[in-house]
């Protein structure tokens, strides 16, 4: 009796893990979320001494995500209706510039300037939306025209000049810190009793925590909570999805599709205007060239978050994660002080990984998941390979270029400055040759590992995967002896990915069984 119940308890724990995983991967935002976690951990490892997973740094990322995040929130709804809005960056720039302009030069009180900005947003949305919904013009074209029109209008109306620093009311959308008043009062010694201890606590933890607790972040999170509630609980929310998945069907079902399409475009431009206010709350001044290329960043965030560009499917929290992923890449790579050009390459790769995860997730196919894990192992092996491999390659290339320049010179060509710079002194040549030969063994060893792992991705049995995982572990020893301890984490992660890949099929079978039982 006790044995049976214990057995039941253990299986149910395992079942719960499997079910939990299934539930997690059913969520649209899981791809972006996983990418955030993986990237966060790797940056944390790369930035020893400059803490990345630190509340104040995470809040800085949220603060800097706020403006583009709200723009992307509006974009999500438009994309769910199978539309697109390429004008959001220009609308953001124009409303930012005009809001600042009327506040600085027309003597508008801040609240009136803010209403003006939001009103302009709604008006532009009504213009775009009417053309799309009632005149049947393609959204891509209407908003592409808008991209140019609103940017130009912004420049024209403000002379493309920066305003002076804006009144403090605008800080309420950005850098205002709700705790700063309490801290100031504490420092002035105006507090007593309970409030004094609260003030002291805030002051002690100011740098580590409270300093970056700002309105940007609060508005950003609040906006997504409110919007999610609206979308999941109102008729409007359901109609948005219906229009995106099957517009003629939605119309036949009696939905006034033009009206809801118009509303969605109005909301999107309104979000762009609200994003402009959040941006102004942290920016040095208002200017009409703000928000350039934001339309692409917003679309990227929406797509990374698992929303389909063809409409009908998507989630706001996915967009939330997508925006954070984009900002986290910038923040993390800056903290890690990665070379500028590498930052560009790595940014693109991370976006590919996030979208790749999402596609594999949607395929619901165990073999794809297994291949993905195998590919991760191969990438890890490749990263390990590049540690000695890069030194080897760089030495070989320098020698090759020296050879080519020497040949040219011997042929009597007069060398350009760039070619001259590639000629090496005899000392440098011996140095490079020894660097190349010293790294040759490790390079070859790890190259074999990469090729073997790449083969496993294509075709494998569980036994081979297990064996290869063991090779990853065994490889740690010779590679460390050769002086490449830095590759150890890559090899460990690679082994973990391979071991994980052997369980994928069993896991899917189990999940299907549980799913059937649950029904």
């Amino acid at each position, binding site marked *: 009796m006790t044995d049976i119940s214990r057995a039941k308890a253990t299986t149910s724990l395992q079942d719960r893990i499997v079910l939990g995983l299934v539930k997690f991967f059913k969520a649209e935002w899981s791809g972006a979320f996983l990418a955030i976690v993986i990237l966060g951990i790797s940056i944390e490892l790369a930035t020893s001494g400059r803490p990345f997973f*630190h509340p104040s740094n995470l809040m800085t990322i949220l603060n800097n995500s706020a403006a583009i995040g709200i723009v992307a929130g509006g974009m999500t709804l438009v994309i769910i209706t199978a539309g697109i809005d390429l004008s959001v960056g220009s609308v953001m720039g124009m409303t930012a510039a005009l809001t600042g302009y009327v506040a600085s030069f027309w003597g508008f009180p801040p609240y009136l300037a803010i209403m003006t900005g939001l009103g302009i947003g709604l008006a532009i949305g009504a213009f775009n939306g009417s053309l799309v919904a009632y005149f049947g013009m393609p959204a891509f074209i209407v908003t592409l025209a808008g991209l140019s029109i609103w940017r130009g209008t912004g420049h024209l109306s403000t002379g493309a000049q920066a305003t002076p620093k804006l009144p403090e009311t605008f800080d309420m959308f950005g850098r205002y810190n709700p705790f700063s008043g309490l801290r100031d009062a504490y420092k002035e010694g105006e507090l007593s009793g309970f409030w004094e201890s609260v003030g002291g606590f805030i002051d002690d933890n100011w*740098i580590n925590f409270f300093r*970056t607790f700002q309105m940007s972040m609060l508005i950003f999170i609040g906006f997504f909570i409110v919007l999610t509630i609206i979308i999941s609980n109102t008729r409007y929310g359901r109609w948005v999805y219906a229009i995106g998945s099957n517009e003629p069907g939605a119309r036949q079902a009696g939905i006034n599709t033009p009206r809801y399409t118009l509303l969605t475009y109005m909301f999107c431009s309104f979000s762009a205007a609200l994003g402009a206010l959040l941006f102004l709350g942290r920016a*040095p001044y208002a200017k009409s060239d703000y928000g350039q290329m934001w339309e692409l960043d917003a679309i990227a965030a929406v797509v990374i978050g698992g929303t389909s560009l063809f409409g009908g499917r998507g989630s706001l929290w996915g967009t939330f994660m997508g925006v954070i992923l984009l900002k986290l890449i910038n923040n993390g790579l800056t903290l890690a002080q990665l070379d500028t050009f590498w930052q560009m390459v790595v940014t693109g790769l991370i976006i590919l990984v996030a979208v790749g995860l999402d596609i594999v997730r949607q395929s619901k196919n165990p073999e794809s998941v297994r291949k993905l894990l195998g590919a991760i192992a191969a990438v890890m092996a490749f990263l390990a390979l590049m540690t000695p491999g890069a030194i080897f390659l760089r030495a070989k290339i320098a020698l090759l270029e020296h050879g080519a320049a020497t040949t040219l010179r011997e042929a009597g060509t007069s060398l350009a400055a760039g070619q001259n710079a590639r000629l090496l002194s005899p000392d440098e040549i011996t140095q490079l040759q020894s660097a190349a030969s010293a790294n040759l063994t490790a390079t070859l060893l790890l190259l074999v590992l990469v090729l073997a792992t790449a083969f496993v991705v294509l075709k494998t049995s569980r036994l081979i995967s297990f064996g290869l995982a063991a090779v990853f572990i065994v490889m740690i020893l010779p590679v460390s002896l050769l002086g490449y301890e830095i590759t150890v984490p890559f090899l460990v992660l690679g082994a973990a990915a391979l071991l994980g890949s052997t369980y994928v099929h069993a896991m899917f079978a189990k999940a299907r069984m549980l799913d059937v039982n649950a029904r």
Partner: protein
Amino acid sequence: MNMTFAGVAVAALIAGSTASAQDVIGYITKSATNAGWMMINQGAADAAEEEGVNLVSVGPAFQGDLSSQLEVFENLVAQGAAAIAVAPVDSAGIAPAVNDAMGAGIPVVAIDTGVAGAEVTSFVATDNYAVAKVQGAVAATLVEDGQPIIYVTGNQAQSTGQERRNGFVESFSAARPNSEILEVPTEWNSQEAQEGVEAILNSRQDVAMVANAWDGGTMGAKAALENLGFSAGDVKLVGFDGAGDAIAAMDEGWVHANTAQMLYQMGYQGIKAASAAARGEDVSARIDTGFFLVTPMTSGTYKAMVGIE
């Protein structure tokens, strides 16, 4: 005269019809909206008026758009401009178009950014590398050896961005060998500067100074400091360009040094050189427009000189 690319063909035709009286000088600028570029463009317009030439000035749709710059360059050549002054968005990318124009006997004057891989009639610019070395040396006097600093770079795929960074880093590191330089990479975008500076300042408390490759970065860095609740002078700022808002920030105590390019002079002398070349006169192959070191001591002189109240 400022117009969009779409308008240039029409403009050049109109200009062509009056060319019998006036030489048409094509002026291809890098930006019509950046504060620094507006000063350069003003200098260009004033020189054209003095010289009595017809200036057809064209700005790109957005900063850094090479393809539209190439297109307008070809249009100007085809429509018979007497000389072309260009501020290339990409030193190497513009070279083929420059070669074509020079081959057709049209003098080309490069303003601000040089051309790599093609001869030009004259190159009118600040020597970015030399000025950045001064900037680095002055910045070094503002911090003690061992104090880490942030350097906000410009676009590292352009010669202007490379020269400014290399000049600064070389002379600063020579004077303060133990100070770590943390770089914030940007493509001349003040938002990138702001976010990068905010990220680093938030994770370390020991940064003493933020030096910038251009004043858009200076203003972004200042906003980052304000966002984190710093006051003027807590972390020193060093600028490059001498733009009006950065000089105002110097008066408020935020900015401690700024190497000002003579922006107005760059546009003015560039168009002067282009007009002279169009008339067939000899022009110097390299015109250095110099710089001015603005500090709280000299900011009054500088403001009087460039006309900032």
